[in-house]
């Protein structure tokens, strides 16, 4: 492993525990060169995230949180600094190698769901497996299992247009989970959802983080949503301004009991 070669980082507080971090970033910089001006989106981020942590990333627009998520999601290269995912230095990998890392280790959940239209739930969920060379039969089987986990058993052949927003987001979560990633990145997953449905999505994330030691990074604007995480990292001006555990963590299962049902479709929560 690489920990012994790491230089000590003093800029921000990282949880001092013995576990191997799933994410370790060291002095991460990202500068966009727009010709005449240079935009410093990230100005030295150092952070450790442990397996099973549910981290909410907050910050105003332009704070650098989106840039940070793109780097964590292996969609972009840092200008400077290093990023270890699961112990592997991924900051210098080629595009093709990054695609493979995204395929095997990272699941993405987006604000706008980003499902393929006119494509059934199963076919949407199996998408990452197509690029892992998994056989058709196995893809369908695993996609059905993943849809069961997010409470969509019986809706495998529905197209996105036949599903509610909450159900579409669950299909997207099932797609993120299909390859058993170590990390799920959720970019404002509740941004397009009503409050009850948002809590239902949080319930799924809390459950996955607890039961599967899945690491979840959640970008959100809403402090109410951030309360479901167990750690909040606040970005401002390309730096980590605050990084602290959530004091009074909300339990989605408990919250749901207090909320009235809005849509009969959403009743199938397990």
């Amino acid at each position, binding site marked *: 492993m690489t920990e012994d070669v790491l230089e000590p980082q003093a800029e921000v507080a990282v949880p001092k525990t013995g576990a191997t971090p799933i994410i370790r970033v060291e002095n991460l910089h990202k500068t966009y060169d727009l010709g005449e001006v240079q935009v410093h989106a990230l100005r030295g981020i150092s952070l450790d995230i442990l397996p099973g942590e549910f981290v909410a990333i907050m910050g105003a627009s332009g704070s650098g949180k989106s840039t940070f998520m793109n780097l964590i999601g292996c969609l972009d290269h840092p200008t400077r600094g290093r990023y270890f995912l699961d112990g592997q230095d991924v900051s210098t990998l080629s595009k*093709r190698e990054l*695609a*493979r890392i995204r*395929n*095997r280790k990272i699941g993405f959940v987006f604000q706008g769901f*980003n499902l393929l239209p006119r494509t059934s739930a199963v076919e949407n969920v199996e*998408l990452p497996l197509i*690029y*892992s*060379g998994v056989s058709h039969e196995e893809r369908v089987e695993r996609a059905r299992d993943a849809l069961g986990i997010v409470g969509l058993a019986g809706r495998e052949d529905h197209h996105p247009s036949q599903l509610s927003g909450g159900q579409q987001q669950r299909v997207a979560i099932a797609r993120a989970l299909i390859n058993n990633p170590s990390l799920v990145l959720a970019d404002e997953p509740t941004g397009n959802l009503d409050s009850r449905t948002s809590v239902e999505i949080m319930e799924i994330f809390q459950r996955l983080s607890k039961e599967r030691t899945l690491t979840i990074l959640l970008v959100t604007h809403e402090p109410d949503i951030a309360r479901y995480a167990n750690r909040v990292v606040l970005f401002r001006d390309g730096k980590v301004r605050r990084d602290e555990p959530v004091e009074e963590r909300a339990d989605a299962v408990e919250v749901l009991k207090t909320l009235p049902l809005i849509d009969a479709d959403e009743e199938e929560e397990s």
Partner: protein
Amino acid sequence: MDLTAVIRVALRALARNKMRTALTMLGIIIGVGAVICTVAIGQGASNQVQEQLRNLGDNIVFIAAGSVNQHGVRMGSSATKTLSLADAKAIQQQVPMVSRVSPGVGAQVQVVYGNQNWNTRVRGASPEYLEIRRWPVANGGSFSQHEVDAAANVCLIGQTVVANLFGGEDPVNKTVRIQNLPFRVIGVLASRGQSPFGQDEDDTIIMPYTTVQKKISGIDWLNYIMCSAISADAIHPAQQQIAALLRQRHRLRADEDDDFIIRSPTDLANVQAQAGRIMTLLLASIASVSLLVGGIGIMNIMLVSVTERTREIGVRMAVGATEEDVQMQFLSEAMVLSLLGGSAGVLLGVAASVGVSSMLQWPTSVPPQAIVIAVLFSAGVGIFFGYYPARKAARLDPIEALRYE
């Protein structure tokens, strides 16, 4: 991704927009159909010319006795008496480009059998004549060199003569009378129908040239000499060599005109066939322009598709598709599009050529290699015009693509 998965994904993407897919394919369908149809018509015409060429004989070089210029009065062809049997023998021996030679004399005669009579043309020839003209004997046999030497009273008769003199009777070994001389019919010529120049080829009698010279025309010269060149390419050099030989033999001065005329119907027909081929090529290349337009249609729709599906591309890249995967996906869509269009175009082209031959009575023939080339070419069109959109899709930045509205 394996090939079947690639094709399945491509088919599904195309099936999502059936109308657009069909319209895009239409360009290729019409292009390939038009090329197949023109090639089929051209091939049919070419086959017909080839058939005519075969019927014309074996690379024939025809030397007719020419006009004479006596004190400024020019006579018509065959007016000279200078073309001789010795000329024929000299050609046979001294012109290596010539394989067979038959001396020729002709006369218009009245033929009588029983109470029937018929006016026809008699041709005096050597036994090689039938080979030179590729004219088989349908019934009976031909005459030999022995009968030529003996100036025997034997003859072969054409189908028209048979019909007019014999009705239903078998003419072989019957005796006809020509200018009061008895001739034994030893064979009946196969039917040839019309010559390319509209004459009834079957209205003729063939017998040894010696017999015609001595017993019918009473001449010792020839009206013409018919030769076979050793190949189609040899026709032209053979003509020149024969001309040189005959000028020398006839002792013509440099300022004197030829006293013979050399023609080659094969040569003429070859030029016709060549012109037909050029015409077909021209039409096919005009038709293939529509294939090009169809290809541009594919490129256009693929570019629209890439723009429309920018988010899809972003998602695919986020979940692990490499540039190659994305490029392959769009390239295979373009190829499936053009291959399906190409195959449908082949069907359309074959159907259209069948329609043309039944409605316009034109001979058509679809050469199998044209189908293979058309399908390969349409696949090539797909790759060529699909490459740029596919490249554009593959080069998208996943972050930008995911943010695309």
